[in-house]
């Protein structure tokens, strides 16, 4: 067969009965692309000689270098059996776990799949995965057992042993299929039972109910699912040597030679049958009688002897004999070649060309687009939990269109885009350079000649006058071309399910959440202006392509049942979409990805000025990759989330070379922490009860440290109450830090949005303005209050909810400021709830009320441990005295002097800082009292610094109060769900244990041998986790990580051994892995804070630098 012409393909596209859409699936390195190569070679696109070495469909450079496929790519092939010609749309898919998203995109577009299995390795983890994927998408698989040559040359099995080995592999595959089948049946059954139960409950009718105990397995026939050579859905092959052996072929050959009917032979060739040579009859029970099974005798033995002659013994004469008997013509240079493999593949590719059996099997066993199962259509069309029956009538009618797959003009067009891929603009057919025809060459020559003449003339003129501008247009042109050359164009990887797609046609783009009922009620068509239906937009098909591996061919129209590329959709399609001319069409069910994106890295440009380019590039990457996610975090980090390390590497390469075209660096993302306090422990580290004396000792220690700096204004008493006076000795605050119960913290965190609105309300109320609040928000606030009240019970928390002063940080965080000052009744945060009753005891807001709040906000925003926000801490202000600052005017100014002096000592920025905060405090308390005070004080701006001082004092007091309690670090936690088979369970636990993970529970998935393990894992330990777990379990376990909550790390970062027992246990330095200390120091080091660490551990062990010794 020569080079396939485009016209022929177009002609074949019109006949869906002869179209086969199929993909090749397998574990990594089982020979998908090599097999694809052989199939491509059969069409003459590449030479037979290069098949298996070129890896034609691996068009990316890194794919060729690494030797693994990283994307799915399609190619259209022709195949003819007798009279019938078939068009095969073949999609090659990657086998690596990281790219299983690409497999999903490929599987969705196909009707059938070739599952390739390595004859030596057998069923591998990814094989199971792809079988499951094929199963979930309802597509029919056929099996190719590849690398048969390895059985002969590497394992040196005899043909008999090989037969048994192959049988085992088939059993394994069928076991996997069987499991999928049973789990599906069980699931269906469970669903049915549930429904029945519901029905029964609703009916509530008595009567004897006969419970059906049978598992339902018996009723359902599953024989058609299994792979067996006698069914004709298994082929044994060696793609690298270029041969394969389907049953049909051999049956055909031997039926002639032995005079046994082909059908009989086909049935008996695989299985426990043997040939009775005398009787020329096929008998049963080969194993029992110790005879060679038919398959061994007729098929394997022949292949074995060929290998023996060509590769092992290199017997020239025998080879020649075989060659003649097989009727194969051998090229002289092949037989002379020193590498026997060349000779072998030359013989094999003529004797049993690989494409023959595989392609005929594909054409016979895999369904055409016409026989799409109704079940599959329903599955595609019913999104989420919606049942197909519940869809509108018009939509249900579309099912017929699917099933007919008609290419009539009036049939509704339905297209599914499974992924977008980037193509160099230069590679598009309209921009490609065609070989020039004779005439064009002549024309160009003419042009060049003329130009030359012009230039000569111009030169002559130039001698007379300066003719500079002549060169200008010539210079400009190449620049423009360069600009175009660097662009990437997105082409959608799609399939037509119904109707004919034409170039320039306008279609609806249906987003995943689009609901056909809404659109139908509006009644609109694609030609209209865009209707206002959510998740619906319009686009036009700018160009259509035939996908030919690395190349694209432009097409005018594509009839239904074909796979195609669509250009010009990058504006309206993000990753995948459903396109249709009918608004009744529902969006297809989203692709199910086996591997979720879990490997997170932060990406930065090497040169900070290239940030916009990076963002643009990441946007393109997001569109081009079905699995990658990109996001910008609140910290300003640009985070890329990928499925695995290999995938990450590919994404980075793409960013660097294609999308952003800048130098980038990827690093570990910043890990957030929270700081909190806990109740003092009852037992020490060796489980001894902590005596009262010792507790005092610890606090004493803290006091010593803190008093080192601010000894005269700070006082810490033994119960943890911190009293602090401002530097001008006018104001004193006493603060105590109390740990909040866990539930309260969680509640506050969950309702942060509500608290934010509450704060806004309060602010406007304080100014005397009224904002109309919806009753729903008020209700929500009331509920929050009552919830808090129910959670904060006990003697210690009496009436606390009423006394809440503020939340922090940023006014809506999970920390509370409590007003426990005697005789100070300020309006509580709940004031918006009690609108009418303001008449009673008028609450008074003291001056500088806001300074206290601001101090609290600053303190909660960055804690003393490592400047991370606080969480779950309640600061209770127990005492707050201010001497009226207006009367001792003189003293005030003096003090203010000293204060400002102190501030300016730190440089301009601190001065600015205090003024910032002080002014903030002031501005917010723009109440009437403030205004009054202002007039009192007149033009003297002395109180500004006073409020600033109060903020600083409050902040310090909070920090000291925090430090007076046992401090703890809180780590962000992931919940981690791992699916693993029983044999790797132990290794999964090992990895989890090493990374401080904790297993919550583990259960077996019903009907399968998979275990589901639920664990929690600190975010700080998750870097490289996915990779490690995959490596250790050889890919049999796949984790999924989702952020769940904050958890207190139980160890105290400041802990040092104090008692005799503790010394005994931990030694003097206690440097045995204090997790909290490790995290804390890492954060402090990152931020450039002081870390209590010696620069040199051992003074004597430094390198001696003196010369005279």
């Amino acid at each position: 067969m020569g080079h396939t012409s485009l016209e022929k393909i177009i002609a074949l596209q019109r006949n869906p009965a002869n179209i086969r859409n199929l993909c090749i699936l397998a574990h990594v390195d089982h020979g998908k692309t090599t097999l694809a190569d052989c199939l491509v070679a059969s069409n003459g696109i590449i030479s037979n000689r290069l098949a298996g070495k070129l890896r034609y469909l691996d068009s990316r450079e890194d794919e060729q270098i690494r030797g693994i496929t990283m994307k799915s790519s399609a190619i259209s092939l022709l195949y003819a059996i007798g009279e019938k010609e078939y068009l095969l749309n073949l999609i090659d898919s990657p086998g690596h776990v990281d790219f299983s998203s690409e497999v999903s995109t490929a599987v969705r577009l196909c009707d059938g799949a070739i599952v390739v299995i390595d004859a030596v390795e057998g069923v591998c983890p990814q094989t199971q995965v792809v079988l499951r994927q094929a199963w979930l998408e309802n597509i029919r698989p056929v099996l190719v057992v590849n690398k048969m040559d390895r059985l002969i040359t590497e394992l040196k099995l005899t043909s008999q042993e090989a037969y048994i080995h192959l049988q085992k592999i088939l059993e394994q595959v069928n076991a996997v299929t069987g499991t999928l089948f049973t789990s599906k049946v069980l699931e269906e059954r469970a669903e049915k039972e549930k429904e029945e139960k519901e029905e029964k409950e609703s009916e509530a009718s008595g009567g004897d109910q006969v419970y059906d105990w049978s598992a339902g397995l018996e009723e359902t026939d599953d024989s058609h699912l299994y792979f067996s050579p006698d069914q004709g859905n298994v082929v044994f092959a060696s793609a690298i040597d270029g041969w394969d052996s389907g049953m049909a072929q051999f049956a055909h050959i031997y039926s002639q030679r032995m005079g046994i009917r082909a059908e009989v032979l086909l049935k008996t060739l695989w299985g426990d049958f043997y040939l009775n040579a005398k009787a020329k009859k096929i008998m049963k029970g080969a194993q029992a009688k110790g005879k060679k099974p038919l398959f061994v005798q007729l098929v394997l033995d022949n292949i074995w002897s060929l290998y023996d002659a060509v590769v092992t013994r290199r017997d020239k004469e025998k080879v020649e004999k075989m060659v003649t008997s097989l009727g194969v013509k051998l090229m002289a240079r092949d037989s002379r070649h020193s590498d026997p493999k060349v000779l072998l593949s030359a013989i094999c590719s003529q004797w049993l060309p690989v494409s023959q059996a595989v392609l005929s099997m594909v054409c016979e066993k895999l369904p055409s687009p016409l026989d799409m199962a109704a079940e599959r259509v329903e599955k595609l069309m019913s999104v989420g939990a919606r049942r197909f029956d519940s869809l509108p009538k018009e939509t249900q009618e579309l099912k017929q269109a699917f099933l007919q797959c008609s290419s009539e003009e009036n049939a509704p067009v339905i297209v599914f885009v499974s992924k977008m891929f980037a193509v160099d603009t230069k590679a598009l057919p309209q921009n490609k350079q065609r070989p020039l025809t004779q005439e064009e060459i002549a024309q160009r020559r003419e042009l060049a000649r003329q130009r030359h003449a012009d230039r000569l003339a111009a030169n002559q003129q130039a001698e007379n006058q300066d003719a500079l501008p002549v060169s200008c247009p010539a210079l400009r042109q190449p620049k423009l071309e360069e600009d175009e050359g660097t662009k990437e164009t997105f082409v959608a990887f799609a399939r037509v399910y119904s109707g004919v797609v034409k170039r320039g046609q306008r279609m609806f783009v249906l987003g995943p959440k689009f609901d056909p009922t809404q659109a139908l009620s509006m009644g609109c068509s694609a030609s209209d202006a865009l209707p206002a239906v959510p998740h619906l937009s319009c686009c036009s098909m700018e160009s259509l392509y035939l996908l030919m591996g690395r190349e694209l061919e432009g097409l005018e129209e594509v009839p239904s049942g074909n796979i195609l590329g669509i250009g010009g959709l990058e504006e309206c399609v993000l990753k995948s979409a459903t396109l249709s001319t009918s608004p009744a069409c529902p969006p297809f069910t989203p692709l199910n990805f086996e591997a979720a994106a879990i490997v997170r890295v932060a990406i930065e440009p090497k040169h900070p000025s290239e940030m916009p380019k990076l963002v643009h590039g990441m946007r393109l990457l997001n569109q081009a990759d079905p699995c990658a996610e990109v996001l910008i975090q609140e910290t300003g980090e640009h985070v890329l989330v990928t499925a695995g390390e290999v995938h990450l590497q590919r994404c980075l390469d793409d960013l660097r070379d294609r999308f952003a075209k800048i130098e980038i660096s990827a690093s570990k993302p910043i890990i957030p922490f929270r700081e909190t306090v806990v109740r003092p422990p009852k037992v020490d580290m060796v489980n001894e009860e902590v005596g009262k004396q010792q507790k005092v000792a610890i606090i004493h220690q803290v006091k010593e440290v803190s008093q080192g700096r601010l000894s005269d204004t700070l006082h810490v008493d033994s119960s943890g109450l911190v009293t602090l006076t401002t530097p001008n000795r006018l104001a004193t605050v006493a603060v105590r830090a109390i740990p909040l119960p866990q539930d309260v913290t969680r509640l506050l965190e969950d309702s942060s949005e509500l608290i934010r609105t509450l704060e806004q309300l309060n602010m406007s109320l304080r100014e005397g303005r009224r904002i109309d609040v919806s009753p729903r928000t008020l209700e929500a606030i009331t509920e929050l209050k009552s919830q808090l009240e129910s959670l904060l019970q006990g003697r210690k928390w009496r009436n606390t909810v009423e006394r809440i002063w503020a939340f922090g940080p940023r006014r809506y965080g999970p920390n509370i400021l409590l007003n426990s000052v005697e005789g100070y009744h300020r309006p509580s945060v709940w004031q918006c709830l009690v609108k009418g009753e303001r008449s009673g005891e008028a609450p008074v807001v003291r001056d500088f009320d806001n300074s206290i709040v601001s101090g609290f906000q600053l303190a909660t925003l960055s804690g003393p441990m490592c400047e991370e926000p606080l969480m779950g801490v309640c600061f209770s202000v127990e005492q707050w005295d201010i001497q009226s600052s207006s009367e001792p005017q003189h003293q005030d100014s003096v003090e203010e002097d000293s204060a400002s002096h102190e501030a300016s000592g730190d440089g301009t920025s601190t001065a600015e800082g205090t003024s910032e905060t002080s002014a903030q405090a002031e501005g917010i308390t723009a109440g009437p009292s403030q205004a009054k005070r202002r007039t009192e004080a007149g033009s003297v701006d002395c109180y500004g610094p006073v409020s600033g001082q109060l903020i600083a004092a409050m902040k310090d007091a909070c920090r000291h109060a925090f430090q007076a309690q046992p401090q703890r670090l809180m780590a962000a936690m992931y919940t981690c769900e791992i699916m693993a088979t029983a044999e790797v369970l132990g290794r999964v636990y090992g990895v989890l244990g090493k990374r401080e993970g904790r297993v919550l529970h583990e259960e077996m998935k019903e009907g399968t041998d998979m275990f589901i393990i639920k664990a929690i894992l600190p975010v700080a330990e998750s870097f490289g986790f996915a990779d490690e777990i995959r490596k250790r379990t050889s890919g049999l376990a796949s984790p999924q990580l989702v952020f769940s909550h904050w958890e207190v790390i139980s160890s105290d970062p400041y802990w040092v051994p104090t008692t005799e027992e503790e010394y005994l246990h931990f030694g003097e330095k206690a440097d045995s892995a204090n997790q909290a200390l490790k995290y804390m120091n890492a954060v402090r080091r990152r931020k450039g804070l002081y870390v209590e660490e010696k620069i040199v551990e051992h003074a004597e062990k430094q390198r001696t630098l003196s010369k005279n010794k």
Partner: protein
Amino acid sequence: MSIFTPTNQIRLTNVAVVRMKKGGKRFEIACYKNKVMSWRSGAEKDLDEVLQTNSVFVNVSKGQVAKKDDLSKAFGTDDLTEICKQILAKGELQVSDKERQSQLETMFRDIATIVAEKCVNPETKRPYTVSLIERAMKDIHYSVKANKSTKQQALEVIRQLKESMQIQRAHMRLRLVLPAKEGKRLKEKLKPLLKVVESEEFDEELEMVCLVDPGCFREIDELIRCETKGRGSLEVLSLKDVEEGDEKLE
């Protein structure tokens, strides 16, 4: 006793000398390198790891030990360990290489952290990461000065970075309420200080919400306070105008 033979002399290597003048006399002690700063910061608690020998010298390199009388006259005690501690705490010393290096490194980080906290990318209103700022600082070859405060240097860095990348200080969002009378006049005066005026309402009072550079906050504050004699008010809505929450790029 000053016979210098190889057998009766103790040679000290890796010496860092800490000197102190007290009572008109100079005293020196011999310490290990890279250890004195750790002692002062409290990280090193073992005195033997700091001191080479606990004798006090007049001149370490010559091996001249201080006389007992001088010591007790200057320090009021003859407990050598106590005197060593005093000299360690208050004496002057040459900072060793590693100490200086770690100090500069910490300051460098600190400066980068402050810059990252204070600044945003004006296009996206999102902060830059610390590591990006660090890289940018290295690109402009910023050298840390050990004797200037980190905050001061951070402001300097911001100014220099503006030339090479898109960076600006995060704006403060303010709400100004001005009495109607002075409103117009004051607005003219404030205009050069305000970056963006987000909303403006003028009925009984002039109410404006605007973004300003934190650097000129003080000026605005003073201006309003003096000009309106306490009737105008100023309210900080947010200290840093940054985007909150994560954003998915799509």
